[in-house]
């Protein structure tokens, strides 16, 4: 784990190479996090991946969290790991929700999705928050990004095969957003038979 001053150094070095790429740092619960500009997320990741002395070559996990009342709303998290030094660092990029991007006034948020490859895909994906895909840098991100798209409707530009992965392909909605209902329906048991006879018909 880089400590808090080390994190500041990383921020300064990275900003020297890519001005404005790292917006903020945070260090709590012994975990280091960089807040990156979503437009330059690939620059930050590549810098952490390639720069001698950093070399975070292993992407443990990529996940999205929905900080609903806050805006920008979606946080894309990259859990990076340097195996020889056993150091972890989290890179966070905040994306504005669909409402903000459709208005086009998202400060510090990613652009709306670029048109996809197919025409119908472009129609379905416009208005969703988007960020650059890091599959070329970290091939392991392929499934993670598909999962993030599946659950939160975040478009990863440049992903080779961005389809739903866990839910059926014709599913409508982004179920892990905080404003999506949990779902479920009441189950009728045999003991309900006296109350509602013939419910099965």
């Amino acid at each position: 784990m880089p400590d808090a001053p080390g994190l500041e150094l990383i921020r300064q070095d990275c900003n020297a190479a890519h001005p404005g790429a790292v917006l903020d740092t945070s260090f709590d619960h012994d975990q280091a996090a960089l807040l990156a500009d979503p437009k330059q997320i690939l620059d930050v990741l590549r810098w952490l991946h390639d720069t001698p002395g950093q070399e975070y070559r292993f992407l443990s996990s990529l996940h999205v969290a929905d900080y609903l009342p806050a805006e920008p709303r979606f946080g894309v998290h990259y859990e990076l790991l340097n195996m020889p030094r056993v150091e972890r660092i989290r890179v966070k990029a905040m994306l504005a929700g669909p409402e903000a991007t459709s208005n086009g006034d998202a400060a510090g948020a990613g652009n709306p999705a670029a048109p996809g490859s197919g025409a119908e895909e472009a129609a379905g994906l416009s208005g969703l928050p988007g960020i650059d895909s890091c599959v070329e840098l970290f091939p392991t991100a392929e499934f993670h990004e598909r999962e993030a798209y599946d659950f939160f409707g975040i478009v990863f530009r440049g992903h080779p095969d961005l389809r739903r992965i866990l839910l059926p392909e014709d599913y409508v909605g982004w179920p892990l957003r905080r404003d999506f209902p949990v779902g479920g329906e009441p189950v009728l048991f045999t003991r309900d038979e006296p109350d509602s006879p013939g419910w099965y018909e």
Partner: protein
Amino acid sequence: MSTPETLDSAGVTVERQQLEPEQELLTINMGPHHPATHGVLRVIVELEGEVVRDLKPVVGYGHTGIEKSSEDKSYWKVIPFVERMDYLAYFFNMEAFCGAVERLLELEIPDRAKYLRVIHLELNRIHSHLVWLGTSALDLGAISMFWYCFRERDRVLDLFEMSTGQRMHTRYFQVGGVIEDIPPGFGAKLREFVEEMPTRVDQYQALLDRNEIFLHRTRNVGIVSRERLLELGVTGPLLRAAGEPWDMRKTVGTLAYPDLDFRIPVGTVGDGYDRYRVRLAEVRESVEIIRQALEGLPEGPHIADDRKVVLPPRSELPTSMEALIHHFKLVTEGYRVPPGEVYYAVEGPRGELGCYVLADGSAKPARVHVRDPSFVNLQMLRDMCIGGLLADLIQNLAMLDPILGGVDR
């Protein structure tokens, strides 16, 4: 579909056969109901004759929405949910979630709880590897392995039943420690198991190590280079079989692992046989860890003494008003966790099992995400199989050991 470029970008070094222009590729669909896919995995395979040219895993047939349901429950009720993700590594799921919440609460767990957790985690690792060995050997035609492995698996489950009351999905780990101390007699029974298990592993090895069919099916099959594995994010025995000694029990060393002496088995080639040998060696090491943890088991409380988080002991409820209030508050509302986010990873039987918890200050988590090793490792199936035979796909899948409950969550 299967242009030479695809093969090169996958990094597979196999001898490519020249594709005649009139040769046709055959697309077949395996699963989701297929006896050899270890669950509800669906694989779309493109074949040229019997040679696999392209492959796509389709997952999600067991998607349960656990992450969404977790956001709807208070923290102590989430534990049974996360348990049911990777259903052969339930103690690891619990440990990942409880560990993450403990880090959010900045709660230190007592030493005895650390040792008890290690004992149960390692028993779970043995259990998981036994189920893997039984079913994988069954896929390769060795049906007796299935009976032997499940015989020992039932011994492990008897131990779980003794200490926790359930065979599977025990909900034994609690935020702050473990829910109950081990019962009297558990140590003796565990010691008996620890004495016996290495001889059982000898039996498995006598059956499989020099078995001609097994060697033919596994040796030099499904080799993926170490660099490619790291790119793909593969962890666990699959990575260690390729020669990378990455084990978070050693490198990160949470719980009581720094106090215990164990080795990390590492393979050389990274084929199916290495994966088998590494996992069996891990079973032996786990037995050693359990033996040491049982000998060094410290006395003391089994759960942290923080009344804001941990349920008061049952005996205090009739006499202490304060305990009753705490109990009522914890059971009805649950405890509040200060805002923050934590990613905490443990070394599961299949690799890095990480849990990301986002707390917003209420009694329910705002986001629970589990980085499941099966989900990530499944991406290497394509690299393992392209250029090989269709029959080797079964072997590769068996040695990959994906648990579809963990993949789909």
